[in-house]
Each structure stands twice: as structure tokens, then as C-alpha cells.
């Protein structure tokens, strides 16, 4: 559906996007993840034909952005970052403007979009007066009014409150059932919750590109268990746990009230029963045993925290 190859864009001497290539298949929800300033917005702007790449090509639905930008604009719905809509317009007027530009007759499409995005109760308000969440939803309505094949959303949940974030995320998931969706975010949790596929981008380059499940299992391969006990000194507990089955490493943790350890499992098996049995056998009192569910956070940090990771 979307093919990007060798995409490069510089602003002065700053390379915002550097030789980016990826393919998005039809019906996928793809998350663009990266720290601020990584080049997410620039990439999405090139996909939506707002800016032209210095080199490289963008193909959406078989149309090339160089010669048929207008065709691409027809089949995509694009919501720019922070939904810069016309503040002086009434929601209904704004949507009907967009509908007319897109050559849609009648009220049907406006009513549908308003229904899906649940903005019917603000249709006669000024866009300027809307809360951020409603504004974002009006922006979504603007993007889906013509039932596009491709939906491009730049930071659709930034600046929203937790309830609104869940609502928007569900809405995106719902829309993703019938459309190809690309969304960008710098919040990890976001992509984990909503996307089938993740492209992590840093300094204008792709740092990782895989399905959400694959990336997650790559991290989850290593489980860490934080353990706080009494009834044994560290060395003692260390020796016993280190010898236990399935334990790769035991490290001390900083806590003066308890004997605290960080147990790293070697495989993907749960080692908590093993620890429990060791505790029972040796008469330790467990005050805390917590399996740290490592999320993508670690991969993300590893891949984007500078350092020498250009080859990943």
C-alpha cells in the first residue's frame, strides 16, 4: 500500500530524514516511534505530500508522490500534529468545507464521520472553543470523511487526558480494521496498545522495524525478578539462588531494610516458583517479589539513546 525508498530530507545542514525505506502492507496499523526530533513528522509530511523529499520516492496506492500528489491526497486522510484546524469556523461548516473540497455531495459523509468520532454534540460550536480531545476528534473526522484507504495520524494522542487517550486509541483500532493506518508517537505504551507493527526511528534513520509481538518477545526473553527478603544475608541467598534452576544472574539491589536481589532468568520460563521454594526451604520471609514486565521501553532506550547503534 505504501512504499518508501531512500527517503531523505534536509533542513539546511540538518538531516531530518536520512535514507529511509520501508513498506506498509494494506490493512496494517503501523506505529512510528521515536524521540522528539527523530524525523517522524517530517516523514509523515512527505507521505501526505505536504513537503517534497530531497531524494527518494514515496508511493501510496500505486501513485508516485512526484507526479500524482493530488491522487495520493485523494486516497489518504491526514491529521497533522496537534490538529491545526481553522479555529474561526464552526465544526459543521469546517467538515462541510472539507467534504466539498473532496467532492462529496450531501450531508451523508459528514454525519457518518461525526457519528464515528462522536462529535455530534459539538457540531455547532466554534473549533476554537473545543477542548483538546474534541478538537482531536474533529481532526479525525476531517481525516476520515471521505472514507480513505490510508489514514496518517501525527501524534494523535499528544496532549490528551488519560480517558481521551483510551477513547482515541480505541477509535484508531476500530478504524484500523478497514484501513491502512500509520501513526506516530513518542509514547511506547501507545504503539504497544494499538499497532500491529512498529518502526522505531532515530536521528532520521530506522533503528528497528518489526511486528509488535516480535519486538516484545525479543525483550521478554529476559525476565527480571526483584526480590526483597529477610532471614538471610545477601551472600547466603546469592549462593542458593545462583545455583537454582533457570537462574542466570543474581545482582544486589540497593535497599538497606531488606536483603534485596535482582534475579535474572536465563530462559523464558517463569522462575518465581523456584525462588518461592528456595525461600520456604531456607525459612526466608518474602516481603516483595515482583516480576518486572519489561516493555519495549528497554529496546527503545537501547536503540535511541545515542551511543553506537547505527548498525542495528
Amino acid at each position, binding site marked *: 500500500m505504501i512504499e518508501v525508498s531512500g527517503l531523505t530530507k534536509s533542513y539546511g545542514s540538518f538531516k531530518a530524514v536520512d535514507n529511509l525505506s520501508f513498506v506498509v502492507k494494506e490493512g496494517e496499523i503501523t506505529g512510528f516511534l521515536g524521540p522528539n526530533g527523530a524525523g517522524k513528522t517530517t516523514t509523515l*509530511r512527505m507521505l*501526505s*505530500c*505536504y*513537503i*517534497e523529499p530531497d531524494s527518494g520516492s514515496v508511493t501510496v496506492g500505486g501513485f508516485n508522490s512526484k507526479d500524482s500528489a*493530488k491522487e495520493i*491526497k*485523494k486516497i489518504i486522510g*491526514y491529521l*497533522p500534529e*496537534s490538529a*491545526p*484546524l*481553522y*479555529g*474561526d*469556523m464552526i465544526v459543521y*461548516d469546517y467538515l462541510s*468545507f*472539507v467534504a*466539498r*473540497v*473532496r*467532492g462529496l455531495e450531501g450531508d451523508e459523509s459528514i454525519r457518518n464521520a461525526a457519528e464515528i468520532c462522536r462529535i455530534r454534540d459539538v457540531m455547532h460550536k466554534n473549533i476554537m472553543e473545543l477542548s483538546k480531545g474534541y478538537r482531536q476528534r474533529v481532526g479525525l473526522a*476531517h481525516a476520515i470523511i471521505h472514507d480513505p484507504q490510508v489514514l496518517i495520524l501525527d501524534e494523535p494522542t499528544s496532549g490528551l487526558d488519560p480517558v481521551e487517550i483510551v477513547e482515541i486509541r480505541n477509535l484508531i483500532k476500530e478504524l484500523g480494521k478497514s484501513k491502512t493506518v500509520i501513526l506516530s508517537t513518542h509514547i511506547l505504551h501507545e504503539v504497544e496498545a494499538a499497532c500491529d507493527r512498529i518502526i522505531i526511528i532515530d536521528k532520521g534513520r530506522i533503528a528497528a522495524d518489526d511486528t509488535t509481538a516480535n519486538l516484545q518477545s525479543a525483550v521478554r526473553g529476559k525476565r527480571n525478578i526483584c526480590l526483597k527478603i529477610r532471614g538471610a544475608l545477601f551472600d547466603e541467598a546469592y549462593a542458593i539462588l545462583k545455583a537454582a534452576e533457570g537462574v542466570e544472574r543474581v545482582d544486589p539491589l540497593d535497599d538497606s531494610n531488606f536483603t534485596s536481589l535482582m534475579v535474572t532468568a536465563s530462559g523464558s520460563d517463569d522462575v518465581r516458583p523456584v525462588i518461592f521454594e528456595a525461600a520456604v526451604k531456607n525459612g526466608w520471609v518474602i516481603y516483595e517479589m515482583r516480576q518486572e514486565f519489561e516493555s519495549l521501553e528497554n529496546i527503545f532506550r537501547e536503540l535511541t539513546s545515542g551511543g553506537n547503534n547505527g548498525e542495528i
Partner: protein
Amino acid sequence: MGRFNGIITVAGKELRSYFSSPIAYIVITVFLIFTGFFFFKDFFYFNQAEMRGLFQLLPLMFCFVLPAVTMRLFAEERHSGSLEILLTLPLGMWEIVLGKFAAALIFTQIMLSPTLFYFVTVVLVGSPDPGPVAGGYIGALFLAAALISIGLLFSSVTRNQIVAFILTWGAAFSLWLIDKITIFLPSSLGFLSYLGTDFHFQNISRGVIDSRDIIYFISVSALAMMFTVKILERRR
């Protein structure tokens, strides 16, 4: 509709937003107060049934008023970021520029239309020559088109409406002034007066519609709009 759908839709949206902001009413009020004052001041003084007072003043009035009409057209979109929305809708760059141009031109005609009451007044007290009156309004249309195009151009280079206003005013005022300062220049530079807006406008408002004057205004408009399109495309 059809081919012009885009232009009409953009123009309609712009026109609507003109009248939803106070600037439109302020501009119209200021324009009518000034033209009314200067028109009737001389009207009773000279005791002539004609509208020359209005049309002599009009080019200078337009220099101040039209920049205020055009300053927001692109500058505001740049400032608020809505330009990104507009440029990612399936509209051609020319459709956007022509749509905004049409909206400003229609707005100017709406602003100008109450001055038809002056004409009614003149008819009531005498029998004016219709030629110069018709010429004056036709000239006003073309003059407005040229100045609006210049305003569009300067509105597209900045995100600050005040800057757009001042640049447009500077350009419009220079073009108004140019045929007046040629008397200070050597006669070989006399051709410069052909560049002046007032020079061409006064020709038309005498009731003589010469193709040279019309071509002048159309060329200025076309050139300015072409540069506007180029600038918007360059910024991508």
C-alpha cells in the same frame, strides 16, 4: 461547479471567515467614513454633479485598506499551522490562490457597494455623465485585483500579519506614488509613470477604457499570483 469546484469552495470558506471576524466590519466602516467624508466635503464645495471626488481618492484609500483585507490570507494559515491542512487536501496550488483572491475581490466589491448611494445622491441633485462613473467602478475592480494579488504575495512570505500588511502597503503606496515623482526625474525616465497604478486608474476613471490600462492591471495580478504559487510550492 465541476472544474471550478475547488476555487469556489475555497472562496466561499474565505468569504465566510471574513465576516466572522471583526476586522471585516472595521475595515468597511473605516473605508466608508473616509470616502464619505472626502466625497461630500468637495461635493458641496464644487457644486458639480459628478463622482470624481470619490475616484480620485480611491487609489490612495485602497493602499491603506486592501492590505488589511489581504494580510491574513496566508500569514494566518502559516501562523496557526492550518496551511498544512489546506495543502494536504486534494486542491491545486492555483485553486487555493485563486480562491483566496476571489474572496478578497468579492469582499472589496461588498465594501465598495454602499458608495452607489453617492451615485443616487448625485442623480437626485443633477444629471451626471454615466461614463466616468462606470469607468470608475470598472477601474476600481481592476485596481483592487492588482493590489489584492500583491497582498496575497506578501501574505504568503510571512507568518506575521502585521509584516504582511506593512509590506503590501509599502508596495501599493510606491506604485501609487511612482507617476507623481517622475516630474522630479529626467524626462528619459518618464516611462516609469506607466508602472504606476494611479496613472492607469485615472485613465479608466475618465471613462476611457483603454486595453493598455486593462492589460497593465491584469499583468500585475497574474505576475503577483504566479510568484505566490511559486513561493508556496518552494516552501514544501
